[in-house]
Each structure stands twice: as C-alpha cells, then as structure tokens.
C-alpha cells in the first residue's frame, strides 16, 4: 500500500515539477518526512535520487536540442558539486530538529519568492523562438561573463542542494541569466544538466551513510518519471499561474505542518 502511495506521490511531484519548472524536489523531502515517517535525513537523501532522474531525463532532451551549454555547466559544476558534497557531509552532524527548522524556513521563503514574482517560476518557454529547421531552438550568440560570481552562486546552490535534497534551479537560473549574460533557455537547460551531477555529489555521501532507502526511492522514481513526462506533455495546455499557485499552496502547507511538527516535539 505504501509503495503505491509513493508512486502516486512521485507522479504528483513529477507533474507539478514539470509544469512549474521547479523540479518538484522541494515538496518531495518534506512529504516523505511528514507523511511517510522518514527521518528528515533519509527523506532528503531519497529525494536526491528523484532529482537525478528528473535531471537525466530532461537534460537528455535539452542536449539533443543543443540548448544545454556543457562547457559552462561543467565549469559551474566544480562549485555546485563541491558545495553539495560538503553540506551533505555536514548533514551527518546536524541535529535533526535543526534540519527540519531549516527546511520549513526554506519552504516558506521559496513560497514567498514565487508569490512575489507574481506566480512566475523559472519559465523558459516564452523565450523559445521556433527555428525554421528541425526541432533546434534558436537563441542569440552569447559569451558567459562574470565567472567568479557564477561560481560563488553555484557554490551556494550546490550547498543548498546537498542540505535540502533539491535541484537549486531557482538560484542558478537567475544568476546565469541576469548576471552571466546567458539566454534564459540555455540557463534553464544548463541548470537542469548540472542538477544531476550536483545531486549525485551529495547522494553518494548520503548513500554511504545509509540515508538513501531503495525501497522508497524505487516507487518514487517510477512515479516521478511518469509524472514529469505527463507534465511536460500537458504543459502547453495548462495555465502556468494555476500550477504556481498550487505549488505555493503546497509549500506553505508543508512549511506550516513542519513547524507544527517541530513545536509538537517540545510540548
């Protein structure tokens, strides 16, 4: 029964992720912790496997369309992977409640960030100019600038990824787009590509610590895979704003629930 529920959770998170462009990792770990009774460390470790799956599946498509910049991605991965490995290591020494407080705070922050942007998550769809030939998307030529800044932001994004089991797209995409002069579609595709390596860098540490549960990861991955494929297909027909609103609602709810859960431990 639990296995089937995990598949359903995966389908849901994968669909919301694909429709909102946020990866969906942010809601997986808290749901595993709150509704499936996993210690937060194991919830985070297990959700990293789902992040790797989403990244691999989606960036294989981006690479075929030549929208992901492998050189830029690889350079920034030096920082994201390092940040992720370091925080994943530290998680082993962080108090469980402290980690829960951190997670609940981040959920709250994330929800308000999406709200402030008027329900807009990262959305590269607007910028795709249909190329006259084939499925190759066209974008203006560019040369990434301000590498030191990009590396610093990537270190932070990687650190958050290792700490919370998320992809870190909401940090990397704006930095590449606004500060490094990379077109939004390339920034999104490259961020997606980087997520896999970043998540793997921390996932190995979680795995060695026994914080990845294969019996939970398997149904989750099966669901996320199906969910994100369905979501990607539905995307053109679904109003972006409603998905963002749904995501914000879930994030706020999870944040409140997690805070209540923490407070409950002290009463």
């Amino acid at each position, binding site marked *: 029964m639990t296995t089937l529920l995990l598949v359903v959770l995966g389908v849901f998170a994968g669909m919301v992720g694909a429709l909102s462009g946020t990866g969906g990792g942010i809601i997986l770990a808290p749901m595993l912790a709150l509704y499936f009774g996993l210690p937060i460390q194991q919830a985070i470790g297990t959700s990293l496997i789902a992040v790797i799956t989403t990244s691999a599946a989606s960036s294989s498509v981006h690479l075929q369309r030549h929208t992901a910049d492998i050189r830029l991605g690889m350079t920034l991965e030096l920082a994201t*992977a390092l940040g992720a490995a370091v925080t994943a*290591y530290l998680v082993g020494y962080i108090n469980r409640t402290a980690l829960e407080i951190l997670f609940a705070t981040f959920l709250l922050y994330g929800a308000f960030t999406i709200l402030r942007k008027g329900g807009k998550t990262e959305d590269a769809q607007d910028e795709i100019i249909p190329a006259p030939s084939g499925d190759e998307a066209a974008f203006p030529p560019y040369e990434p600038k301000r590498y030191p800044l990009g590396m610093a932001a990537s270190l932070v994004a990687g650190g958050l990824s290792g700490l919370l089991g998320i992809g870190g797209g909401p940090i990397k995409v704006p930095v590449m787009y606004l500060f490094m002069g990379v077109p939004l579609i390339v920034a999104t595709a490259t961020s997606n590509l980087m997520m896999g390596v970043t998540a793997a860098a921390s996932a190995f540490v979680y795995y060695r610590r026994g914080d990845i549960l294969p019996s939970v990861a398997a149904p989750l991955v099966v669901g996320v895979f199906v969910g994100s494929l369905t979501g990607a297909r539905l995307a053109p027909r679904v109003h972006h704003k409603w998905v963002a609103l749904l995501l914000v609602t879930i994030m706020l709810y999870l944040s409140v629930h997690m805070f209540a859960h923490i407070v409950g431990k002290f009463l």
Partner: protein
Amino acid sequence: MSEKREPGFDRALALVLSIGAYAGFFVMAGGVVAHLLVDGIIAARLELAGVLILLATPVVRVFAAMILFFRERDRRYGWISAGVLLILLLGSVFGVGER
C-alpha cells in the same frame, strides 16, 4: 567559446543520460512490481540496482565528457571535467562522510 556546439558531443552525452534514466526507471519499475507481488530479496535487489544505476549516471556523463574534451584537445575543459569527477568520487570511492 560557449557558442561552439558540437552536435556529436551533445548527442553522445544525451545518449548516456537517457540510457541511465531509462535503465534506472525500468529496473526500479521491476523492483516495484516484484515488491507488490512477492516482496522478497528480488525486489530489494532490483530497487538497489536502480538506485546504483541512477547514482552512476551523472558520473558516467562527466567521465564521457572528459574523454571527449581530451580527444578534441580541449585540455582546459578536460581538466575541469576531471576535477568534477574527482569531487564526485570523494563521496563514492573514498567514502567521505561514512560512519
């Protein structure tokens, strides 16, 4: 530098990623089905195999990119890939963070 796109290069890495994702998915789906039907050692083995396939996928992608960069005599990015590979191996091979 970044406008340079080698279609073959991107395709090779896309292939690595999709093989990893699909293999991980199907092995795990097998695990889930086994779990629902018999719930024994086979299910656990398949689920673990799926996790390991997915963990290995990004590593193989970075390794493949490193080989391709060095073959194109793009040493700079070859070494950058080697650096990323080293960081990935910190946790997996050297067991940093293990208790």
